[in-house]
């Protein structure tokens, strides 16, 4: 009998891990003093938010005696942070009061009842008028209420190394107009310096959502269907069976099979971006890659990979569309701050949020983190405009940028896209097979009613 039970216990370990979703580190102090918990990401390479919250903590505690701000930084990649945050919301004991929230998960998390609707608070906050239209829209839930306030936005550009391209005989400033131009550059760099990585293309599940934002979507949104290539905005359905999807996967296939990118095994390392910023570009071993507007933040003084010469050695331009239609492609995302629906002190939580997003604090955050400002008064500040030589170039991309369809199914779809690109980059599937598998995944996620054949 004892052995039978032992067996059952063992088999249950995993089951228990899957279903026992309650967290375990709540600091539920029973006293008059109130505690405000704040959850966010802090890693070696991302400390700007920690700096911001440390400042606001002091400010807030001075203004509200008796209230302790408990900062709960999570040292994890974005995807793991989002999972952990969602799990912590499942119990009022563990749900944070204020937290760092990705724009793509706002709708899903609002529908799940994790986020507090902020409409009444925002109506009384005079600074709300300073936020751009796009930033306000980003915080909307499916029901039309606002659930989160934007910290800043970003765009994606094609960043290239001037010395590497010039050594390969490519004149700079480089302005590729089609995918073929990018591939030609990669071939030229490969010929001139076989040791260099000509064109790093983020792909697969290793780099998570970054693979899509700084990789596949830049391709997909530049195919025939343009901004509707992933999600058909008119019908509100997810696109399957499109030519563009296969074309974009074929580009991924070409880049990896021709050896233009880092080999698949290295590209799948979740920390590969650190070697892109920290080693490949500064050491002149990388031709180009698609990266965010926040790129300079790693190289500026005080950044994670200080490299003062970047201002002269790097160039940024829009990533081209497949056939050269339009001015190029960019993707935008951004993170926000939100208040937990289970918060017992929502008034204090919102006050903390407004302090963190005040003009002064916003300015120092967007400058330190090279974000694109969403507050009009911050965007007009000279110290913001002069914070790095690329602010103008990446801000221009706002004109042509795309936002992800932030429906509640988005995160599952995003994971399906990552799987498709991983299958292609590793050579496990052809682009057609991977696209077919993606179509099946999408149908199983949103149902037959949620897809449209294009």
């Amino acid at each position, binding site marked *: 009998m004892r052995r039978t039970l032992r067996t059952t216990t063992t088999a249950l370990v995993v089951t228990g891990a899957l279903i026992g979703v309650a967290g375990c580190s709540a600091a539920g102090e029973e006293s008059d003093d109130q505690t405000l918990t704040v959850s966010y990401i802090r890693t070696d390479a991302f400390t700007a938010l920690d700096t911001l919250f440390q400042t606001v903590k002091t400010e807030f505690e001075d203004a509200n005696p008796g209230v302790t701000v408990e900062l709960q930084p999570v040292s994890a990649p974005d995807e793991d942070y989002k999972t952990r945050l969602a799990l912590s919301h499942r119990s009022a004991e563990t749900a944070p009061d204020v937290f760092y929230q990705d724009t793509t998960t706002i709708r899903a998390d609002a529908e799940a009842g994790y986020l507090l609707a902020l409409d009444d608070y925002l109506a009384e906050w005079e600074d709300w008028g300073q936020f751009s239209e796009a930033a306000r829209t980003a915080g909307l839930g499916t029901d039309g209420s606002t659930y989160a306030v934007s910290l800043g936005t970003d765009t994606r550009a094609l960043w290239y190394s001037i010395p590497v391209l010039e050594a390969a005989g490519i004149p700079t400033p480089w302005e590729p107009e089609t995918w073929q131009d990018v591939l030609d550059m990669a071939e030229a760099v490969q010929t001139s310096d076989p040791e260099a990585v000509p064109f790093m293309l983020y792909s697969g599940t290793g780099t998570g959502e970054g693979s899509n934002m700084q990789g596949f979507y830049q391709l997909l949104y530049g195919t025939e269907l343009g901004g509707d290539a992933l999600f058909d905005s008119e019908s509100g359905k997810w696109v399957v069976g499109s030519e563009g999807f296969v074309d974009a996967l074929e580009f991924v296939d070409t880049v990896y099979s021709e050896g233009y990118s880092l080999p698949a095994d290295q590209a799948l390392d979740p920390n590969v971006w650190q070697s892109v910023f920290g080693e490949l570009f500064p050491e002149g071993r990388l031709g180009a890659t698609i990266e965010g507007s926040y790129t300079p933040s790693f190289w500026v003084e005080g950044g994670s990979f200080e490299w003062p010469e970047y201002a002269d050695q790097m160039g940024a331009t829009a990533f081209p569309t497949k056939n050269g239609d339009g001015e190029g492609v960019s993707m935008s995302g951004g993170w926000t701050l939100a208040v937990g629906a289970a918060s017992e002190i929502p008034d204090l939580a919102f006050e903390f949020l407004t302090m963190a997003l005040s003009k002064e604090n916003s300015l120092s955050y967007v400058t330190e983190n090279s974000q694109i400002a969403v507050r009009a008064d911050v965007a007009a500040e000279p110290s913001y405009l002069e914070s790095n030589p690329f602010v103008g170039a990446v801000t221009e991309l706002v004109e042509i940028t795309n936002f992800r369809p932030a429906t*509640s199914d988005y995160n599952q779809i995003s994971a399906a896209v990552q799987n498709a690109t991983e299958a292609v980059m590793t050579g496990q599937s052809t682009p057609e097979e991977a696209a077919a598998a993606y179509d099946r995944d999408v149908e199983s996620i949103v149902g037959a009613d949620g897809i449209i054949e294009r």
Partner: protein
Amino acid sequence: MPLLPALLLLAVFLLGPIVWSIVGSLTNATLTGASATSPDWVGLANYERLLADPDFPLSLWLTVVFTVLSAVVGQNVLGFLVAFAMTRADRRVATIASGAVIGAWVLPEIVAAFVAYAFFSRDGTLNQLLAVIGLEGDNWLFTVPMLTIVLANVWRGTAFSMLVYRAALSEVPPELTEAAQIDGANGWQRLVRVTVPLLRGTIATNLMLVTLQTLSVFTLIYVMTAGGPGNASATLPVYAYQEAFRFGSIAFGTAIATVMLVIGAVFSIVYIRILNRAEADR
């Protein structure tokens, strides 16, 4: 009556999670979205989806390969051989050898997983050793992911089988093997005809324990390969984790976990049968 507290504990900590797992797998619960807080009943839809999912047979196959190679063959056979060799080895040699084997076992799983990762990774110990003798390594975790996790699990888990077999071997009456020796049986014959039949019960118990431990191995695989590249090493626990926490479909992940529960139960029944027969033979 004295059994009541024990039964209560069992109901809470064993039966509870099983029932919860089964119930959860019949809903559409997700990590976020409208079905996160108020899931609906969907009947057997998750199981239908699982059976139709082309990833499932692959994952099932990888789980079987991993379990058979690393537990049934690797840990079990190697553990027995090490234990048997020790009965004949010099005491100091035996102490040092068992220390080395047990070392891997006492490490917390996460530490053992990082050690194995550091050993097999591109710039890892294995490739550095190969470089010393002039061979060029490979990114083993990427090119042969299953082999690396099987070897890592053998390395980590052999100590358990070794300890079980050492205890059992010390209980084999020496007069039986001595009698066989006098009758002219050689070493191999004494092992196969006398020692192994006496250990049949221990072998069945050990097989059951290592099989069930290995079926549920998660940390080791997740740290080393995360189920990748693609899904080339995504055994059922990793597959369940990815579905539940990466894709956010808690219910579907739970359905996979329930299937694992059934597989574990089937294995246990088989082993218990063998065990009963071994005991009846005595």
